[in-house]
């Protein structure tokens, strides 16, 4: 479980997050939704420690991240898997080397064991016979799968996904959503997904928070979101013809 308590964050005097508090539950897919520029990416980057918060706390199963000593911070980071928007695969490494990277850095496993683990996770994300390919040779969907494989290679307790299906066709996007949802249940992870894709919201949104103008505007689940009377959320959710039809 991840608790976010009263987070404030500003850049050059411009307030981006104001008093955001929420709980991301274990074993569930927790979605952060909001328009572009609403502050959801900043919120996620505050959670994973890429940005230091101005005020407030992010607590990982009782451990306040900002108060941890460097060594503890490092070990907490090892419990996190992060899927970046563009995949953030290392260009000069093959698929196999990318997935093996955290194992090389943080474990003393023999090579054969690491190889086995890599093959397991690549199989789990339905990527077979791609071990020797380089990121430049992969499609968008494959890149995301490799990034997911790398993120789960160390059996993380927390999985963060920044717009996991941006730039993907609807079918591939759905498969990626399903994969993340299945992995969350399988590994009992606390998964936090940053998205503005309504298909994802309706498919895998077990808990959803809506961030608007840097504030937590609404919290609920995929059923409640269709029945909400919150005007700002309605404007966001029913912005497309497809979602308006679903509502009707």
């Amino acid at each position, binding site marked *: 479980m991840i608790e976010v308590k009263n987070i404030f964050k500003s850049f050059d005097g411009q307030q981006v997050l104001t008093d955001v508090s929420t709980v991301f539950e274990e074993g569930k897919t927790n979605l952060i939704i909001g328009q572009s520029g609403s502050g959801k990416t900043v919120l996620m980057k505050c959670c994973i420690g890429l940005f230091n918060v101005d005020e407030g706390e992010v607590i990982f199963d009782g451990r306040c991240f900002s108060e941890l000593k460097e060594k503890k911070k490092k070990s907490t980071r090892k419990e996190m898997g992060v899927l970046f928007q563009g995949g*953030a695969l290392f260009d000069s490494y093959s698929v196999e080397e990318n997935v093996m990277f955290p194992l*090389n*850095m943080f474990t003393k496993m023999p090579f054969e064991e690491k190889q086995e683990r890599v093959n397991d996770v690549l199989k789990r994300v339905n990527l077979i016979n791609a071990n020797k390919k380089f990121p430049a040779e992969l499609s968008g969907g494959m890149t995301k799968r490799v990034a997911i494989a790398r993120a789960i290679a160390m059996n993380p307790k927390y999985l963060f996904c920044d717009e996991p299906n941006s730039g993907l066709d609807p079918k591939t996007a759905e498969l990626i959503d399903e994969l993340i949802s299945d992995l969350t249940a399988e590994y009992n992870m606390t998964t936090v997904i940053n998205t503005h894709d309504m298909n994802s919201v309706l498919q895998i949104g077990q808990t959803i928070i809506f961030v608007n103008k840097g504030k937590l505007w609404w919290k609920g689940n995929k059923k409640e979101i269709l029945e909400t009377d919150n005007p700002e959320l309605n404007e966001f959710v029913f912005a497309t013809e497809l979602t308006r039809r679903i509502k009707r």
Partner: protein
Amino acid sequence: MGLLHTIGDYVVLMAQTFKRPDKGKVFRKQLFIDFQHLGVDSIGIVAFISLFVGAIIAMQMAYNISSPLVPLYLIGYTTKQMMILEISPTIMSLILAGKVGSSIASEIGTMRVTEQIDALKVMGINPANYLILPKITASMIYNPILIVFSMVIGLFGGWVAVSITGIVSPVDFVIGLQAWPVPYDIAYALIKTVVFAFIIASVSGYFGYTVKGGSVDVGRASTKAVVSSSILIIIFDLILTQMLLT
């Protein structure tokens, strides 16, 4: 104020860079990749330029030393001194600043804008240490080898030039090369090279690491890295010459 800010950022980055690597085996692997990428891949350009510059210097010396009172072996001697004291360590370092510096800045800069550095950071890895330290180490070890190679090739180029043109006999030229050997000159050249190698790798690493934006900004960072490294090399050339030769 901007310059002070940049210097402060650079010092902070170097403090992060010069820490014990997370894993020695991974560091060594990265170091060997950088030996290849930054060192071995530069042999061709260093050889080509050194050969021609050595030849040109020998011909220019012959043109300038035309008095019958001056012994002809001085052409070989002055060519040697110029190659060892200035051309190989400084000019080759400037060329390496262009080739290696832009490569380091654009590689690290691209990793920054594609969130690869963020990925390292969230894994609990010190990205500055992981990315920049092997490059600095590889440059500081390999550049002196390249510069000694440049000296040899440059002097060979001079010998080829005088042999082909006949402006001075090859024997006189070789006598000049062997005249008044001063081992300290080589030490001076290598000290300069090591300092210049540090400047090239660390300054380029800094500009790449601090890129913000997209591909255009990576290009700008690469240009800034080459320009700043070149300026610093010239300034430190003057300082080191004052400190070590006077």
